């Protein structure tokens, strides 16, 4: 690998997002191993003051232009392409987040660089970068080789440690000015999270329900357990999408990030988009009929079994224990 590595710094509402530090840490390792510089790109007029937080980068390219604030994926790709042309970049790291979705595809179309999605590990191998991607909801891994280390990699949030991307150092800053056409997509306003009846981020016990609960009526069983444990019910996306519980109860990539003392994952497969939102729970207990469900790889305790059979028994036993 003979060219630089560029991290697209992601920010939301004036804060650098954790994914940025994850990518900087991962990028720094690859850059050091191959002796190339690590750059970051910071886009938007509100973002410029955040450059100082990206000390792990050798240089931060700042495009301090209001048209880049909450700009559509296509416009961000135009800006990145301008930086790539100027700075001899071969490898680009972009967050695999909702906010960044599509940027890599547009950049790939503009540059011809191949794009690898769902990246969760990367290593150097004889000049090539080998990226490990996680597919099929975490059930399959796939190694992809980027010859000469050239390509675009979308990084899964939670794949790399955040702390490794932080540094006290002060990066050098280079201002760039990008020619931007009037975009056909414009940001209007934020829609704040619905305030639910309960705030699941503040619960010490959460009973998480997934598609394995099978019907809306069965969710009542989980409600019963949550009540006697003094917690609340939350859910994976399919449960919310079916309208079984309100949006305020969704945990995961688009939903809430929760860190309860105990998280029960009932009939939840453990797809990365769900895992992202509850991985830092102190104790994770998973119940699933599928012994190969990915949730068992991260949970502390696992039960292979039918949650609908187990729940009534568990509720009775908890009641008995509490007296």
């Amino acid at each position, binding site marked *: 690998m003979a060219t630089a590595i560029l991290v697209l710094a992601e920010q939301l509402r004036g804060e650098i997002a954790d994914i940025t530090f994850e990518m900087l840490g991962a990028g720094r390792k690859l850059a050091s191993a191959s002796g190339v510089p690590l750059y970051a790109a910071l886009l938007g007029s509100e973002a410029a003051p955040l450059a100082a937080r990206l000390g792990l980068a050798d240089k931060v390219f700042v495009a301090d232009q209001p048209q880049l604030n909450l700009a*559509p*994926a*296509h416009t961000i790709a135009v800006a990145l392409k301008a930086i790539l042309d100027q700075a001899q970049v071969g490898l680009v790291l972009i967050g695999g987040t*909702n906010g960044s*979705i*599509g*940027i890599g*595809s547009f950049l*790939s*179309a*503009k540059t011809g660089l*191949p*794009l*690898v*999605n769902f990246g969760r590990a990367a290593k150097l191998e004889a000049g090539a970068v080998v990226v490990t991607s996680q*597919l*099929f909801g975490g*059930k*399959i*891994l796939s*190694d*992809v*080789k*980027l*010859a000469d280390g050239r390509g675009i990699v*979308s990084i899964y949030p939670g794949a790399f440690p955040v702390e490794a991307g932080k540094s006290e150092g002060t990066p050098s800053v280079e201002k760039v000015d990008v020619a931007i056409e009037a*975009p*056909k*997509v*414009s940001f*209007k306003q*934020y*829609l704040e*999270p619905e305030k639910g009846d309960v705030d699941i981020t503040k619960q010490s016990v959460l009973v998480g329900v997934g598609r394995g609960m099978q019907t809306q009526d069965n969710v009542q069983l989980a409600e019963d357990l949550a009540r006697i*444990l003094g*917690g609340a019910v939350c859910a994976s996306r399919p449960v919310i*999408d079916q309208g079984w519980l309100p949006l305020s109860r969704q945990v995961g990539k*688009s*939903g*809430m990030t929760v860190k309860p*003392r*105990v998280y029960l994952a009932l009939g939840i497969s453990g797809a990365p988009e769900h895992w992202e939102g509850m991985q830092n729970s*102190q104790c994770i207990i*998973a119940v699933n009929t*599928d012994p190969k469900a*990915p949730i*068992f*790889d*991260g*949970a*502390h*305790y*696992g039960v*292979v079994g039918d949650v609908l059979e*187990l729940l009534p*028994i*568990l509720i*009775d036993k*908890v009641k008995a*224990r509490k007296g």
Partner: protein
Amino acid sequence: MNLYVLLKMVPDTVEELNVATDGKSLDSEFLRFKLDDPDEHALEQALLLKEKHGGKVTVVALDAPEVDEVLFTALAKGADRAVKILVNQSGLGTVAAARVLADYFASASDKITSDTLVLPGSQAIDDLEGELAPSLAAALNLPFVGVVSGVTLAKEQAVVTKEFAGGLRGEFEVALPAVLGIQSAEKPPRYVPVAKVRAVMKSAKIETVDHTPPDRLIRLELDRMYKPEAAGRAQMLEGAPEGIADKLVEVLANNSVI
């Protein structure tokens, strides 16, 4: 409105997935296919828009196992046309699939008009080479928004809700025509009785379009595919349900929740 929904068949992950002997693809022997989740929502969103604003819903799929049933189901739910593009999908990456669909939208009968909305699902579980929606938007030179969970139409534009994180969403205005990657519809996808699907199978037709596969199927060099090692595996609680429940009560007590 001229509404197009793109339907992709993906392996059902409820079944066990195995890697084929070539070490680079899934073993097809026991694979069962189903419609990708977000596509169910894209179809629902299109049907809701048609009910409100009128127009036509066309569902488009590349040939795949079990796809006919999915196309007939879409017709039974209210889609007006179903189109199957006859192209071999094995080894076809996202960029090449976008190329095939872009060619389809260049054909005389299905040209993009000023009131066209193309609605792919936001992201499939196997999109190693990026998402199709932005690749297609790039190929057609149309605006794109992804992770969309709500669409309303006003004059010459769509107002869409995009999900960020932590329940935060944003509202965007998008000039038409456009490509929107749908994550969820405003309402749960409707149900259609099997009897109705059967009736549609007898009365309706799936249109077919021929297509030669693109020269280059995928831009990535796939080294190998494999199952993750069970790292840091959970401590499994075994026994009959009664015994398991007793152990769970202990775990809950040890974590001071009871």
